[in-house]
């Protein structure tokens, strides 16, 4: 009888060694036999009809395999695709709608040849009037980007977009409770402010990269995609191929942030591979990825009424989102922004309308907490403005209006499952612990992740005791593999090092909706936990038949099964049960809205909550702002991998810092002027607060394994308003437009000086 393996307390990331040694494989590392390389010719104009597209000379270049253009689209099963509206052609057909839209894709033996061929393509445009802001897009005489709105229901997210015919509005979403107008009549104070949040880039360091290969009728796609099954589904519709014949494999992904969610360049690359009759690889540059998707910019006007004690009576909000040239998941962004602009407050009367509109700019898309940072920027900035105007401490004003745990932000949503007041107290304490007194600015947030509870997994316990977990959750850097490994290790009582998390692969792995909306820890966590439990049940059943006396008080121990002092390795259990020194046990599970013991019918499955507190220092002569202290607090239920969870919170806060201080995709006359990694500024290590702390609240009350809630998006929410509130408190200037650039701060300081004299 062999010994049990020693316990293993290794909690390092599952992908640590692969990543630090450069061994981790990304989509751009994939090479397949006969593979050709694609480069994309992009529109240089914001809105135009293509009057001539001549690829004759480019096609004749030695080494060019083929050139895909709009003419090739006629043979597709479905020419236009989308997630809410079928509005996007696989490649521009006779019209371009934004600078950067693909108009031709050259496939060549080498990248260099493809690149050279781009210069030989002749294209003429008949320019059309364009709109590069949402305000211009809803003007009465605005050019309309899309003649028809083909809305599709429950395709990716639950629900259907409500476009307005004959306009650029592709989504209108309202929330209405009580009677806001009547409440305003009784109010002691009404405040109206408008805030703006610009379109910003995801700026994942790994750009979009796809390899597509046909083998007969079978299509294999390697893509750094966050939602492999959504890619599979859209490709099936566009190319008329059965889902079973489409295999999506996702290697490691170098950052997603929503920019690789749903479907991006996969249909384009597959169309090129189909025409070329060869595998095709397209790896964008980071600048091209910046022309592929971005966060939706927003203009938000809030009318908030209060009684004389500072109790909010009503809130009316209009949210206008700049959705870019194609809707993508913009309709969901609008709906979430409408929820997220309420805040964790008890407000009886709400009248909120969100509109998302087409503009001749880079398509908007999901981005870490969709609609959240925009909405929270407005709401939490205004809370401080109201507090200031009413002479109430901003924390006190929030406390007078916060919902308690169990309170309802909307009666259609699950009651709040966190204590925001307690979180504020912890933020206060943590920032005091950093020295130099209380915070100068805080902001709070509660958002409802749009989680579809649908995802499965397999846990295969192999003969030597090594374990493969098959899950379509994508490791986009957030560390999901580490979390899943931990869940399986706990459930099976095995060493984490004996567990491999396989690459997502739709041909071998059960359906999962996708990686986003902070859902993987909960949904895939439960799926692998259930699958591991299923494996455990099967192994113990096998073992009870092979131990002497068929005992039923067996337990799993590292490497095998134990009964009292007796230990059998898995190999021996299988050997005795199967009659051969081989075999495996496959545990399987599918989490659905009706999962036993779960209450998944009501949204959200949990609330993603955040409090941010900070202090700032401004060089008043120059206008540069630095965050001197920052504290983030999140209620995560349980941190399965504490250092990974802190990393997610802090990474989100740093990304939020970029939104707060630096980032804005700028357009001048329909042209993106800073959509390159040289011109676009994201935070660097020197920009981060030198004194910072993250507090994770763990009450074990989440729906996921070990009481975990999802997390990773909340930390981005409070950063910008907390900083703006600190700026207002310390320096007496209120800025309602992001980012808080040095020039804006300098101008506000000068205006303050002028006003004072």
């Amino acid at each position, binding site marked *: 009888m062999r010994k049990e393996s020693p316990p293993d307390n290794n909690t390092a990331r599952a992908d640590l060694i692969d990543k630090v040694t450069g061994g981790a494989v990304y989509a751009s590392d994939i090479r397949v036999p006969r593979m050709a390389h694609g480069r994309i010719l992009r529109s240089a104009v914001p809105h135009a009809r293509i009057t001539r597209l001549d690829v004759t000379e480019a096609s004749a270049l030695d080494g060019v395999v083929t050139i895909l253009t709009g003419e090739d689209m006629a043979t597709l099963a479905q020419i236009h695709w989308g997630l809410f509206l079928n509005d996007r052609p696989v490649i521009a057909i006779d019209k371009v709608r934004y600078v950067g839209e693909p108009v031709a894709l050259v496939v060549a033996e080498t990248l260099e040849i493809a690149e050279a061929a781009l210069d030989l393509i002749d294209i003429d445009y008949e320019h059309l009037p364009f709109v590069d802001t949402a305000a211009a897009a809803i003007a009465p005489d605005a050019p309309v980007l899309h003649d028809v709105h083909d809305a599709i229901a429950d395709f990716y997210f639950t629900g259907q977009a409500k476009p307005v015919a004959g306009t650029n509005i592709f989504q209108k979403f309202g929330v209405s409770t009580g009677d806001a107008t009547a409440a305003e009549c009784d109010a002691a104070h009404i405040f109206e402010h408008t805030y703006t949040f610009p379109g910003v880039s995801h700026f994942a360091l790994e750009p979009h990269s796809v390899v597509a290969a046909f083998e007969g009728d079978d299509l294999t796609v390697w893509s750094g995609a966050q939602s492999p099954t959504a890619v599979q589904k859209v490709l099936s519709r566009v190319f008329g191929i059965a889902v079973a014949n489409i295999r999506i494999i996702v290697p490691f992904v170098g950052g997603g942030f929503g920019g690789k969610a749903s479907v991006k360049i996969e249909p384009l690359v597959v169309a090129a591979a189909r025409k070329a009759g060869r595998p095709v690889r397209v790896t964008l540059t980071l600048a091209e990825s910046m022309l592929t998707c971005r966060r939706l910019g927003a203009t938000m006007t809030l009318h908030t009424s209060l009684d004389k004690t500072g109790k909010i009576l009503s809130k009316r909000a209009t949210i206008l989102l700049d959705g870019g040239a194609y809707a993508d998941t913009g309709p969901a962004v609008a709906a979430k922004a409408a929820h997220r602009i309420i805040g964790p407050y008890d407000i009886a009367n709400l009248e909120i309308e969100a509109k998302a509109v087409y503009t001749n700019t880079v398509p908007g898309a999901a981005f870490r907490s969709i609609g959240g940072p925009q909405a929270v920027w407005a709401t939490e900035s205004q809370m401080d403005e109201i507090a200031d105007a009413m002479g109430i401490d901003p924390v006190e004003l929030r406390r007078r209006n916060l919902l308690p745990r169990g309170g309802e932000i909307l009666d259609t949503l699950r009651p709040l499952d966190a204590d925001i007041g307690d979180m504020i107290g912890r933020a206060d304490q943590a920032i005091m612990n950093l020295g130099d007194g209380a915070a100068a600015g805080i902001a709070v947030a509660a958002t409802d992740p749009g989680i579809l509870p649908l995802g499965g997994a397999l846990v295969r316990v192999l003969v030597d005791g090594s374990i493969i977990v098959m899950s379509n959750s994508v490791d986009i850097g957030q560390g999901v593999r580490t979390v899943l490994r931990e869940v399986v290790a706990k459930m099976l009582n095995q060493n984490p090092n004996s567990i491999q998390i396989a690459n997502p692969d739709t041909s071998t792995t059960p359906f999962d909706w996708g990686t986003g909306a902070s859902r993987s820890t909960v949904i895939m966590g439960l799926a692998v936990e259930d699958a591991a439990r299923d494996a455990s049940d099967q192994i113990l059943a096998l073992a009870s038949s092979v131990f002497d006396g068929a005992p039923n008080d067996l337990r799993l121990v590292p490497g095998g099964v134990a009964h009292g002092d007796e230990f059998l390795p898995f190999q021996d259990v299988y050997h005795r049960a199967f009659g051969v020194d081989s075999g495996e046990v496959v545990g399987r599970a599918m989490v659905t809205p009706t999962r036993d013991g779960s209450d998944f019918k009501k949204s959200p499955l949990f609330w993603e909550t955040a409090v941010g507190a900070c202090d700032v220092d401004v060089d008043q002569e*120059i206008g540069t702002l630095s965050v001197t202290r920052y504290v983030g607090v999140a209620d995560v239920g349980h941190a399965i991998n504490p250092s990974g969870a802190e990393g997610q919170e802090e990474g989100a806060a740093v990304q939020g810092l970029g939104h707060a201080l630096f980032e804005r995709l700028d357009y001048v006359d329909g042209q993106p002027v800073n959509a390159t990694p040289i011109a676009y500024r994201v935070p660097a290590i020197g920009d981060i607060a030198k004194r910072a702390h993250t507090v994770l609240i763990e009450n074990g009350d989440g729906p996921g394994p070990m009481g975990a809630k999802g997390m990773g998006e909340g930390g981005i929410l409070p950063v910008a308003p907390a900083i703006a509130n600190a700026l207002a408190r310390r320096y007496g200037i209120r800025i309602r437009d992001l980012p808080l650039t040095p020039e804006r701060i300098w101008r506000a300081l000068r205006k303050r000086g002028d006003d004072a004299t």
Partner: protein
Amino acid sequence: MARYSDDVSPYAGGTELLLAMKMHFADYQHLVDLKRIPELRTIIRRDDIVSLGALATHATIADDAIISGAVPALGALCSSIANARVRTSGTIGGNLCFAEPRADPPVLLAALDAQLVLKSARGEHHISASQFIIGALETLRAPDELLLRIEIPVTACNIRYERVVFGHRTIAGAAAAIPKDPANKPRIWVGCIGTHPTSLPTTERYISANPASLDDGLTHAIATDIGTLDIVSDEDASADYRRHLAETVTRRAITAAADKKGTP
């Protein structure tokens, strides 16, 4: 270089050139790789001249004992330019010859009164750093010429470079070289605000006339000089804000240089 003079570029660190070529802003059929000429990297001091090889990288200059002894302001600047990757491969000569309007070293080298030594098949040619750059991406270097070295006079001056940087981009930079002997002329240069570095003559005269006075008169002199300049307006800073920043960094550079009495 002479043979391909209509379609050739010297290639050293490549931090600007390769980027420009990748983005199709520049297109050369021929590149001459200078990295194989070690002589172009040497930094030596001969009497009161520091001779700085054109291929010395920013990182080398930042760590060089001769530089830190003779012109510490240049070492300090080179230690903080751009990012570590650029500092490790980018060269001082490339920086000058590319003449990117946002580059800092040309501003400081002009204030240091450095001389540039260029060479071609036609012979050697000396140009003052203060005259070398004539516009955005434009210099007096002929297509067949190579910049060999930069000769920096070591003088009894207090030297200071001050700048405002957003991300990796300098928004305004100013260099002040104030002689310890008030009889000698100060050199005050500003850059990164227009097409190329510019001297501030009113300010220089004011300092000469009022060596101990850093008052409203100085502020006025700086504003007078900078008021005459064409200042770029872009997404980082509009012209009036950048003008203010240029005035601010100029005053800060002069104040800091004037405060450093007694240090080299």
